[in-house]
């Protein structure tokens, strides 16, 4: 754990902005906070200038809170609405050229392995549906073919939201967008199926209607990517601004879709399954030991 970077020089403690003091005293570095604890610790992603009701920012908040080891994580973003979120993030991150995110992450992950051979460094890609499934599909697929060990997260709002509403390959057939008035002429691309075919060890499809499911799937994706191979999490994040929804209506839409055309899916390779089962057993064992300790102390 690289906690050295979160230790403050005491000669400047009195002039450090409150935000940083809070991050050191009550942030997630080196502590076991997760999405379940939101509201009780200082988050790495808090204020943001995104639209009211933005589901992308909600998903972003959840995954950042679910990082298993934030002190040793580097996130890679891509052009799109996520690039408005990244400047707020109190974590190392790289803004890549639109579509290049999985190529950048490949180099980064390999570079980190060479530079820090004795440390586990997690790399997480976060990009929109346009960046992942259209312009960056080549980079995305090839990183999976090569078996690059990092997690890829797609924020699927089924639109190029940041540039005003063009259709993407992830838009449903027949859907009309602000800048695609005649309606989409072909089916939504199944990137999840492509991911499985390309050899991803873990694949999940979730929506913002289930924050804890996002958290669980994302954590698995990071852990499996660390040990086994590439992973992919696709999160439905409807955009109230482009879809002209009231901010409160966008999560309702996610709820509705999660029961119909955006149902939860999970693919776990046999190797990943074995790894996750062993890990769960180890965690349970730890819990048993800890509660036994507590019993002994209270006795």
């Amino acid at each position, binding site marked *: 754990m690289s906690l050295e970077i979160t230790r403050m020089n005491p000669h400047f403690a009195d002039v*450090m*902005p409150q935000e940083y003091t809070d991050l050191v005293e009550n942030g997630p570095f080196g502590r076991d906070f997760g999405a379940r604890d939101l509201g009780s610790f200082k988050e790495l992603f808090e204020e943001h200038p995104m639209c009211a009701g933005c589901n992308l920012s909600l998903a972003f908040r959840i995954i950042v809170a679910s990082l298993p080891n934030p002190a040793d994580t580097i996130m890679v973003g891509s052009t799109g609405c996520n690039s408005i979120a990244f400047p707020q993030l109190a974590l190392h991150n790289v803004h890549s050229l639109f579509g290049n995110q999985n190529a950048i992450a490949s180099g980064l992950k390999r570079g980190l392995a060479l530079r820090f051979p004795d440390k586990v460094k997690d790399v997480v890609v976060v990009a929109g549906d346009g960046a992942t499934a259209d312009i960056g599909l080549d980079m995305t697929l090839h990183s999976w073919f090569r078996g690059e060990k990092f997690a890829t997260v797609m924020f699927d709002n089924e639109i190029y939201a940041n540039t005003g509403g063009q259709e993407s390959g992830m838009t449903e057939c027949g859907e009309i967008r602000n800048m695609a008035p005649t309606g989409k002429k072909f089916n939504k691309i199944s990137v999840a199926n492509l991911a499985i075919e390309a050899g991803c060890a873990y694949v999940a499809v979730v929506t913002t209607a289930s924050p804890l499911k996002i958290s669980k799937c994302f954590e698995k994706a990071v852990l499996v990517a660390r040990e086994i191979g590439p992973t992919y999490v696709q999160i439905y994040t409807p955009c109230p601004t482009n879809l002209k929804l009231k901010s409160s209506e966008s999560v309702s839409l996610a709820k509705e879709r999660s029961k119909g055309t955006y149902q939860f899916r999970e693919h776990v390779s046999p190797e990943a399954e074995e790894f996750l089962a062993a890990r769960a057993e180890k965690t349970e064992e730890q819990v048993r030991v800890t509660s036994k300790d507590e019993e002994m102390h209270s006795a």
Partner: protein
Amino acid sequence: MERYRVVPGPEGYLPPAAALHGVELPLPGQGLVEGSRVEGRTAALAIAERLVSASVPTFFPGPLLLWKSTEEALERGRLVREIAREVGAKVIPMPDYRPKYPMIDPAVEINPNHPNLTIWFNKIDVGVFIGVHCHQANLALKIIRGGTSCFTVALCAHEGHEDANASLRDTDVASLTALLDAVRIVKQGGE
């Protein structure tokens, strides 16, 4: 050709890079004052004079100084605070390089992407960078020179900064101690 002087701004949008005007980095043992190579001690005295005569001198310690608890960083931190006390300077940290849209809080922090906000807000007339990664310092120095009349100083641990109005190189505990001495000498009316 007349020697190009790296004087305080405002130079306007996109101030020229001093290097393109032939300003070279100082050699070991030297410093830079307004783009000219001078002896390190001369540069320290020039910086001390600016600090002592400023209305709102301010130190901007960066991540390399704020987030390390090595012995060296601790000692450098102590010396920076001592120099700041000696000249009555503010200390406004640059804890990281996030652009933090729409705006940082200019009263308590500075950021390389819009350092002019902090300079304007606090009416800073002499700003000293230390412990900032070089490429981020270059960005901040150019923006400050572009949009403000603040005199900038870079206390660099590497080779110095030609876009600062004055700069030391290889700044370590010894050179900070020498700067503290220079400040005391200037306060007593010079050598």
